[in-house]
């Protein structure tokens, strides 16, 4: 037997389609963002062959090139030596 009450002819349900679409959109956007980040984490590293490490070893470099050339942080060997030998004449010849 059908126990559902008969709907009057003038009955109109509340307009919920927009709310449903909003809910689906928010859930879909969240899942899409999470999936993209998870997929990127599962993929192999972009520099899987270690190109940066290869060249830093082959050319015997001191530091990555994130800082400008000539910056003391880039070329730490350029940091001025702590002992000023200008006033110690003859020191350069000592062992």
């Amino acid at each position: 037997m059908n126990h559902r009450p008969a709907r009057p002819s003038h009955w109109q349900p509340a307009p919920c389609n927009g709310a449903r679409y909003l809910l689906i959109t928010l859930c879909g956007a969240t899942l899409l963002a999470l999936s993209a980040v998870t997929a990127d984490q599962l993929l192999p590293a972009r520099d899987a062959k270690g190109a940066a490490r290869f060249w830093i070893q082959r050319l015997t470099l001191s530091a990555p090139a994130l800082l400008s050339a000539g910056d003391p942080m880039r070329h730490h060997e350029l940091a001025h030596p702590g002992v000023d030998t200008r006033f110690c004449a003859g020191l350069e010849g000592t062992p």
Partner: protein
Amino acid sequence: MMRLRRHLPLAIWAARDIQRRWGRATLLFACLAGIAFTTAAILLFSQALETTWGRLMQATPNLVIRRIDAGGWAPLPIDEALACAGTVPGVLDPTPRIWGVAAGPQGPVTVVASAAALPKDRLGGIKPPSPGRAVVGQGVSRSPPGSRLELNARDGLSVEVVDTFPAASGLVTHDLVWVTPDDARQLLGLAPSQASDLAVYLFREDSEQAIQADLVAAFPWPVHIANRNTSLQRYHARANRSGGLALLIGLPALLGLLLVITAATVDTMGRQAHWGLLLSMGWTTADLVRLQVSQAVMVGLPAVTLGLALAYTAVFCPPASGIIALWITGGPHIPTLILERSGAVLIMLQIAVLVGLPYLAAVFLATLRAADSSRRSLLQAAPWN
């Protein structure tokens, strides 16, 4: 699944409530996404850069020995330096380096040459340069291969660009010019038997400090020794200073989070009449709390997720990561910057909790406090009363 279907009508009701006040919801979405993006971009970049820098520095020489005299740096005689370094136990593979900083068309560049013999065939997919030719990094010159490159240091040098380093190695080769040893010596003013300095690898890395005294005693002239650990510590110190500055950028983000929480609490107090109406129609306090938390989750979760995803993209995708690096470090713009991604998920989870949890807690507690009042007092809070 049945539990989800049971909560679906409430979720749709919450979505309709958001639709009714779409302007406020959009602003809240943008604020939460912005806070998550700003905080995550800074923290992800700092952590990724430190990891990448540390791993690359493990491939650099343990010690670099430079000859000094009364005027500072002096050229190093190769044969004598190799003989002196070879007498120190624990020293592996002393390598003379020919390198220097020269003025290029786009700014200063690092000129390097391999004093050691290289295979004549391709090295890492690139043919080693021949006399008068150079292999350059992506940031040295925007001219196509085959064009001339003018360099100036002690003397001038004009070379033909024959190839560029691979884009994946941009973090290391961005402003590098690889030439032959003879061309480098001409540019830097070195004699044929001289080098810029000597790179030394050690058998035991923890002897880095102790072996320096032996090396200094082994050479007949004064030398200055730079070690890898000191360079790492100086980088950490600079990173801490940068982190402190980045914290100043993050303070407005935290203030914005505080304002979002305050707005959520104030908005809750302004809806008492509406809740009084719902309570009068048979809603319970638990239903109201579920409704408010559902609304907060519907706005907050996608906002924080989107902010974190954008920050992840900005830090780890090469075109955008170079811009972030330029913004935070102030160094050169490296379009092909590739950073290590390890540890990123943990940081993003921490930021999601840091941003989302106070917001949800504020909504939950404010709703619970407001809805706990009597229906009469809630209805009397209406503006028409």
